[in-house]
């Protein structure tokens, strides 16, 4: 796994963005950027240069699931790994995210170990 890959962290709560960024930094990732909802995230992703997207679901403007669908629909970003970190924990929503092509799904509150495990899994799969 390339620790220099550029990661975009999207959450409407700035505390959660800081927490996720802190944990990612702790895991050795240093190339981190953030956005506060899908609407601000999408132009960044479309402009290119990102290798991994970590997004919340429930956000004003554009939700994480809408962002995921846009990422998958655009040929330039279609293959980008996407990890959802959200408080939404209804089965139908998890299934919806899976069908939209999410690569990992973490429910809040989560632990550092869970985040590491899911990221390892995502990149072990995409490498293999």
């Amino acid at each position, binding site marked *: 796994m390339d620790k220099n890959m550029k990661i975009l962290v999207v*959450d409407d*709560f700035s*505390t*959660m963005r*800081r*927490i996720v960024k*802190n*944990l990612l930094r*702790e895991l050795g990732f240093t190339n981190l950027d953030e956005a506060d909802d899908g609407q601000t995230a999408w132009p960044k992703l479309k402009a290119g240069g990102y290798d991994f997207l970590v997004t919340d*679901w*429930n956000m004003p403007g554009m*939700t994480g699931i809408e962002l995921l669908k846009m990422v998958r629909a655009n040929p330039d970003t279609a293959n980008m790994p996407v990890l959802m970190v959200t*408080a*939404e*924990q*209804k*089965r*139908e*929503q*998890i*299934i919806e995210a*899976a069908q939209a092509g999410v690569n990992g*799904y*973490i*429910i*809040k*509150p*989560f*632990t*550092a170990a*869970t985040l590491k495990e899911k990221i390892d899994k995502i990149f072990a799969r995409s490498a293999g």
Partner: protein
Amino acid sequence: MQDEDDRLELLAKAKQLVENIEAKNDVGTGELLSAMSIDRERSLFKEVGHLTRQLHDNLASFALDEQLIDLTGKEIPDAKERLNYVIEMTDDAAHKTLNAIDEILPVTTEMQQKSEELSKNWKRFLGRELSLEEFKDMSGEISKFLESSCVNTKIVSDKTNEIVLAQGYQDLTGQIIKKVIALVQNVEDSLVDLVRIAGSHEDATGTHKEEEKKGLEGPVVPGIVVEGAVNSQDEVDDLLSSLGF
């Protein structure tokens, strides 16, 4: 228009009444007067009937107002659970943070004291003030210090990460409080509706607001059953693996 017709009819009757009195037609006058008083009673009954009907409709519309039933029967008790959960989460996060600090502080204090002590001896060593015995003691101390530093800095960094993670309560309680704010707004709107309906003679039916689009569920709160929700990350993982993940 009804009023205008009534008025014209009344005027015609009044004219007839004057004519009858002038013509000294006492029988006609008496009949006309009693007919007029019956009309009056009839319109009074009509008005009472109308008001009764309206009251009945309004009451029925309230009984059927699902939004109101939902508010009083479900959402307000839910809101209490939600706010209690916010207290619980903030309490838990504050304790986690303080506990971590309780573990960090003695470690940093010990490291600070040790390094001050060693630094003093090190300066004496550089100034060639140490005896061989003292030098041997110091190098033993330095070895121990370096070993404990490895352990201690690990403790500090682990505990600091626990503190970072504990701040997640802000996001989750924020989402819960936003929902309660929306509920309070909803209650306010319903009360305004109630006052408007009680104060006006308009028919209350047909003024229902369209049922609000159900938003996202947000954090699961203990004590509030959300149908179809998973309870742990393990269940998420199981569900995803059943989908071929």
